[in-house]
């Protein structure tokens, strides 16, 4: 039963990044730049890991994802400044973020290492057996052996984000700014501040997703490390209807599709299905979800619009 751990392994980065997307879109800022934020996170985590592995030992990957979060948050401020303060089109600014992230990181890789890709990290996230739980009959073997800590972290974080977005005053303010900024402003909520927070949080989570992906799946950084995972996280966010737990479910499903497309040839009943169906499944399903065939998915009302004080 290799499918479950492998699914969760591929899903974890998507979960983190999709949660980031939720923070941004719930505050009313469309964030196409998730892909770029993941690139920044992956790059930062790998470089940190390679540089400091001797000082931190086996804690290195964990510290590296924290550093990746910080880097993602800082980088996302560019998007925040452009989309909120400079009133740039959110989509255009997101495209610029993606272009800039891939250009900048490859430039830095060549500057630092003098070649097109980094070395392979020596300490990534390894397979583990969860103590105690692994001994539960049946379930223990499927869910808690040969798995990764990051997979469980992703599930826990998704639940925390759900609590923050739907059960706290901060979450209510964030959502109100994304639904009707003028009403929120009238009630004394600082629209600009909330939107900046939303985008910066999305940067932190995007960086986290990228850092986890690089340290658990690819183990180095090159131009092809992040290839579409950010957009797939965006798809997971939409397929999950802008809801943290929905996004968690969607990301796990997409992780399943991705892992099956890789290990599927070793499973007898899936050998017959051409790979291409599994590869395109996340994207086709997202289109169907948006169209309304799988329950209507509606974006926050004010997402993608600028709030200009005093205009009607």
């Amino acid at each position, binding site marked *: 039963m290799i499918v479950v751990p492998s699914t969760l392994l591929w899903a974890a980065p998507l979960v983190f990044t999709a949660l980031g997307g939720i923070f941004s879109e719930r505050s009313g800022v469309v964030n196409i730049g998730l892909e770029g934020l993941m690139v920044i996170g992956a790059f930062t985590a790998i470089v940190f890991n390679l540089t400091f592995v001797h000082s931190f030992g086996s804690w290195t990957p964990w510290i590296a994802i924290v550093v990746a979060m910080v880097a993602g948050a800082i980088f996302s401020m560019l998007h925040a400044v452009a989309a909120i*303060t400079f009133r740039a089109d959110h989509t255009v600014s997101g495209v610029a973020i993606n272009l800039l992230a891939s250009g900048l990181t490859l430039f830095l890789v060549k500057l630092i290492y003098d070649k097109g890709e980094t070395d392979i990290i020596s300490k990534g996230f390894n397979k583990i057996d969860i103590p105690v739980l692994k001994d539960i009959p049946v379930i223990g073997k499927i869910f808690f052996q040969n798995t990764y800590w990051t997979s469980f972290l992703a599930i826990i974080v998704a639940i925390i984000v759900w609590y923050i977005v739907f059960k706290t005053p901060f979450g209510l303010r964030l959502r109100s700014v994304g639904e009707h900024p003028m009403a929120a402003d009238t009630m004394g909520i600082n629209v600009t501040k909330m939107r900046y927070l939303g985008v910066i949080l999305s940067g932190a989570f995007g960086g986290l997703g990228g850092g986890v992906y690089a340290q658990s799946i690819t183990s180095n950084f090159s131009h092809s490390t992040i290839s579409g995972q950010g957009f797939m996280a965006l798809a997971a966010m939409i397929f999950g209807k802008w809801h943290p737990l929905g996004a968690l479910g969607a990301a796990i499903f997409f992780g399943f599709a991705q892992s099956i497309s890789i290990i599927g040839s070793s499973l007898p009943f899936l050998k017959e299905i051409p790979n*291409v169906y599994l590869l*395109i499944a996340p994207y086709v399903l997202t289109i169907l979800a948006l169209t309304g065939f799988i329950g209507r998915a509606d974006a926050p009302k004010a997402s993608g619009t600028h709030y200009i004080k005093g205009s009607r």
Partner: protein
Amino acid sequence: MLKSFKSILTPIIAVLLGIIVGTIIMIISGYDALAAFTALWNGAFGDSYYLGEVIRQFTPYILAGLAVAFAFRVGLFNIGVEGQFLVGWLAAVWVGVAFDLPKIIHLPLAIIAAMVAGALWAFIPGFLKARFRVHEVIVTIMMNYVALHVSNYFIKNIITDNKDKTDMIKESATLRSPWLESLTDYSRLHWGIILAILSCFVMWFLLERTTRGFELRSVGFNQHAAHYAGMNVNKNIILSMVIAGAFAGLAGSMEGLGTFGYATVKGGFTGVGFDGIAVALLGGNTSIGVFFSAILFGALKVGALNMPLEAGVPNELVDIIIALIVFFVASSYIIRIFLDRFSKKEVK
């Protein structure tokens, strides 16, 4: 300050800011910026080979830029140029490989196949937008990935027998010209540039000089007003995506029939579609603007390849500069505020 003058000034300032920030990045990184820009210039215009390569590069850029710009003028954001480009490339090569026809039929057939493939790929988001009000940005992004995987599958399993690369297209379907190649010291320059320039003219004529174009632009300015005036908004939305997709598919045929002459299984995107967004934005979504900004980006991309050789600067620096230009064009609101302040001071 005149409005038309300002609309040209903003992109120029954005380009200058992009280059300035790029220079600062080089200086901080300890590179010789002057040597880098000299290498960039030599790599783009240094001799006839490089010039041919620049023209070869900006041919698909013009068409990708038009594909973004055309949809934008009707109020749609076509991020799906990359996908439409890939299916166009595939269709052109498929026709080029599969048939044996006289050139006068084969070449146009391959080009038309590419345009139809791109148009069909763009029809889907256009239809979903018109019928279900689904935002075209998300659908076109998803369609990009579907195009990537589906075209890889076609190349591997249907056109070839489990190979990563198709055969070369037949001589009768090629856009290549030994004459153009010898003229430019054996670059990969091909006849596609004529089609690209023609397409610029077609877009201008269609939008500015026909009734249909007037309707399309009206929908772009204000859907409700267009609807009230008796125009069919949904039909125009679909039509604009279909035409934009045809431009993108044509861009794909430039690579399939001209530059490469084959199609390969790809691990990721070519980037032409996303560069097309930069081209269209910088060109203000007009056909003449797209033409000139495509030249700029084509020269930057080709010239960049010379930077590591001559100045030791990674060619990704140009990608950074392009991204910064997009960023500054998008933030043109703030540039305009500065320009307004500046011009007011002059009056006093």
